[in-house]
Structure formats: structure tokens, C-alpha cells
């Protein structure tokens, strides 16, 4: 499964990436909300892991934009 991790905290992102890769998933990482939203629109992800406090665009707005864009994957 291809999973997108939107997390600005580098150690946490690295930890999540390592754990998901151990579970045989393919992980993409975005360090801010706007970049993560763009990546979610351009790529078909099976799951999105989203932080709330993000630079440029916080998690609430990313969440609303994902739902408004009818991106059906769970996050």
C-alpha cells in the first residue's frame, strides 16, 4: 500500500516512515500542509497520515480540502 505521511516533525516522520516500511508499505513524506495536499491530489494513496499543527496549511484545512476534493482514501 502507498501511504502519505504529512508531518513537519522530522523525528516523528522518520519513525512513522520506518514503522510503515517495516510493514511493507510504500511511504511518501510531506513536511507541510500545502505540499501534502498537492501530493494527495496527484497520487493515489491508500491512506494518509496527517499531523494537525503544520506549517503553511494546518491539518484542519488540509482535511477539509481533501474531503472537498472527494479524495476517498481514509486518513
Amino acid at each position, binding site marked *: *500500500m502507498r*501511504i502519505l505521511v504529512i*508531518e513537519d*516533525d*522530522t*523525528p*516523528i516522520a*522518520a*519513525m*512513522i516512515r*520506518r*514503522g*510503515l516500511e*517495516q*510493514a511493507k*508499505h510504500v511511504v511518501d513524506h510531506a513536511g507541510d500542509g500545502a505540499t501534502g495536499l498537492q501530493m494527495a491530489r496527484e497520487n493515489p494513496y*491508500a*491512506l494518509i*497520515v*496527517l*499531523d*494537525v*499543527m503544520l506549517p503553511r496549511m494546518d*491539518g*484542519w484545512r488540509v*482535511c*477539509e480540502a*481533501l*474531503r472537498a476534493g472527494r479524495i*476517498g*482514501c*481514509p*486518513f
Partner: protein
Amino acid sequence: MLTARDAIDDRVRGLDAGADDYLPKPFDFAEFLARVRALLRRDRVHRTRVIRVGDLVIDTAQRRVTRAGADIGLSRREYDLLEALAAHEGQVLTREAIQERVWMNAEEATSSTVDVYIGMLRKKWTPAMGSNSSKPFTASATPCAARPHPLWMPQQRRRRREPEPFSLPARRGGGSLRTQLIAWNIAALAVLLGTLGVVVRYTVSSFLMASVNRELERMERLPPPPFRDRGRGGGPPFGDFRGGPGPRRFRPPRGDETLRPRHFDLQGRPLNPRDTRRPWDDNGAAFAAARQGREHRARIVVDGEPLLVLSVPIVQRGQIIGVGQAAYPLTDVERTLASLDAALLALIPVALLGAWAGGAFLTERVLRRVRHATQAAERIGVNETSDFAARLPVTGNDEFSRLAETFNNLLGRLETAFRQQQRLLEQQRRFAADASHELKTPLTVIKGTASMALASSSNGDSSGHHQRSFRDINRAADAMSHLVGDLLLLARSDGGQLGRNRSRCPCATFWSRPSPPYPP
């Protein structure tokens, strides 16, 4: 969604924004992976069928809900909840059953969480169906009484748990200041009028009786008409008649000749042989007093008319030879006193009634300002809707105005203190939130890395992975140590334990300190 915000409101906001799951930091990495697996699995399973309940259509493949063709946008959790309810049409689901089916982790989802989602689902349901739609998810008092769309009534239960709103203490009945003032006013005036009535009655009565007595004494001082001394020849009678000559001739009231003074010997016979009148009888008390040389006054009734009779001894040559009597009718006096009594008895209640009306009017005028002040104070209140910026009305320059000004000054100081307290609390909350957030990041790393290390250890992979894990744990511990040290420094500074030392230094020193020492 991953966040350090773990308050219920934050969770609800995240889920309401469309998130399918919400995991607060620090989290257990094994749980995180389990949730990822569950989300992926559920997504695959739910893409397989369509549930129909009446005109409600739930497309589990697209996770889309419509009713009568109208699309209802639901969040992931709302959709799961609705799907669970629709899958058990006609049944009553307990909170625990819903928690197991929708949240799976019963510890995370409390009963209040279920209530919140039912409320959100109902809000989205009603606008979609318009005003003619029946209210969904109605409650049943007994779990066995199933409804077309089963559930309980979470809103009603929540309403029972809500704290009672602030209210002022109930007023005690019958004890208002206005009633007390009027009662005291009437009571004081009643005592005053009663005392005044008694004094007036006594004064008028004394004055009238004194006039009567003076008239009687004047009558007695008049010399009797000449007559012959019975059995002892001529000579001036009553040569030393007590009182001497009076200033004028007595004329009996009403022209009644029967009231002219009478003179008798000690046996009750008239000294004037031509006088046929008899003494005014009061059972011989007048003659007994005369024999002892004393005057005597008595009220007697003659032919239904009250008379005041004055009896004085007649002394001749040092001897008491008889009794002289003069009478004055008391009819007018007693009628006057009776009229006065009636007037007093009538005037006192009227005066009390007037006192009540006047007291009510005056107290109303006075207490109106007190009432306005009380209403303003109640608007200010002490609950969460308190308006500390409100002030009591100040008009004039009387005692109430000074009291209102004093109270307003007190409110001003209270408002200032309240604002300061609010700012301090807000700063404390923000500080605690920031500190909590900063601490949760290394904690999350520690927990997650440790759990991954344990998992890999159980799988037999313990070489390079363990080294990376322990390095991350060590860095996270260093970050926590720095944060805790900074927090202690701030606490000491707030406590005034640090001396103030002003010096110039580069801001970069402070920008870099809170950042965890992780490589970018």
C-alpha cells in the same frame, strides 16, 4: 490525524472535518500500526455492498449515503456509525455495542463520544430531509422497545447531566424591605396617634371638668338669698360663709331654676324655710363630708340628666351648721367628650390608612433606585455571562448615588482584576499547551521507537535496527531533558528566584534553545 491536542473538542473537530481516525500524541506505535491496518481493511471490506433501509441507500464501496436521492455528506466516523445502525435495522444498539462496532477500541470511545456523534449525525440528517422528515434516532426508554431507526436518546441523557445554570438565591417571601418599612411606619404612627389621642382626650376632659369645677366653686361663693334664721331670730346668715362674695350673680345653665344653689342644715332641711327643694342625694356622702369640714364632689343622675354636685360645709361662728350644694349639668361636657372620642376613633384608622398609602408611595420612590441597582447588579452577575463592564446608574448626589459610585469603583477594580486573571490564565493555558506539545514530540519518538525495537527484537532482527532505535531514543531523551530544564528555569523565573540581570545578547541564542537537537 496525529496531534498533541487530545481534548474532546479537538477530537470532535478533527473527525468532523472529515478525518477517519484521530490519534493523540504520544501514541503507542503498535496501536498506530493496528489502526492503519484497520483503516485499510475496513476500506477494502466496505467497498463490497450496498445497504438499503427504505429510501436510505448506503453505498459501502464509495462510502456514499443518499436518501431519496439527496446526498448526505458524512465524515468517516459518522458514516461508520450510520452504517452500523442501518445494518441492524429494527434493533436497539447499546452504547457498548456501538463502541465495539464503530470504534473497536472501547477505551478510546467513551459513551459521551457516541453521544457526540449521534448529535452530529442528527444535525446532518435533518437539513437533508427538510422539515417534513421524522426525527431520526429517537430514543426508547426501554431498550427492548425498538423503533424503525433504533437508538437511545443521547441528548436527553446529556441534558440531565448538564450542570444547573447559575442562579441567584431564591428570595424569601414576605420579608421585602418595602413591606418592613411600611409596617414599621404604620406601627410607629399607630403608637404616636394612640398616645396623642389619649393626651388630647385627657387634656380636653381636664379642661372641661376644671371649667365646671370653677363654675361650681363660683356658684358656692355667691351669698345665699336673705332668709330668717330658723328658731334663732334675724341676723346676718352665713356671716363667715366660705369663699366670700363672688364677682357676679350665678345664673344656672339652661335657665333651670332647680339648679340654683341649695342650703341645708346638717339634718337635710332647707335653711331657707321658703325653699322646698331637697338635697341632691348621693347616699349621705356629702353631709358626712360636710360634718368633717370637707368639700365633696359627686356625679349623680337626676331625671336622666348627669349632674356634678359640689357640696361645701356652711360654717357659722366656727361651727358647721349646714351644707351648701351647687350643681352643674354634665350633659354638654359628656356629649363633647363622646364626640371627641368618636372623632379620635374615626381619625386614627384614617390616619393609619393614609400612613400606609404615604409609606407605600415614599418607599416605592426610595426603593425604585434600589431595585434598579439590584437589577443592574444581577445583570453583572457572577456566572459565565458576567458583564463586568456594566455599571450601576448614578443620578443625583444623594446617598444612593454615592453608594452606586462606590459600587462602580469596586466593579472597576474587580473588572481589572478579572481581566488580569483571565490574561494570566490564558498565558498559563498557552504555556501548558506549548510545553505539552513540545514534550509530546520526544515522548512520541521514545514510545514509537521503543515499541518498534521490541517488535523487531521479537522478530529476530536486532542488529542495525536496534542501534538506530536507541540513538533516536537517546536524542529524544536529550530533547526532553532540555525542555524540562527550560521549564524549570521559567518556573524559577516566575517565582522570582532569579535575579534580574539586563545585558545585550543575540536573539539566536533563544531561538535555538527550544528546538530539539535533531538533525534536519
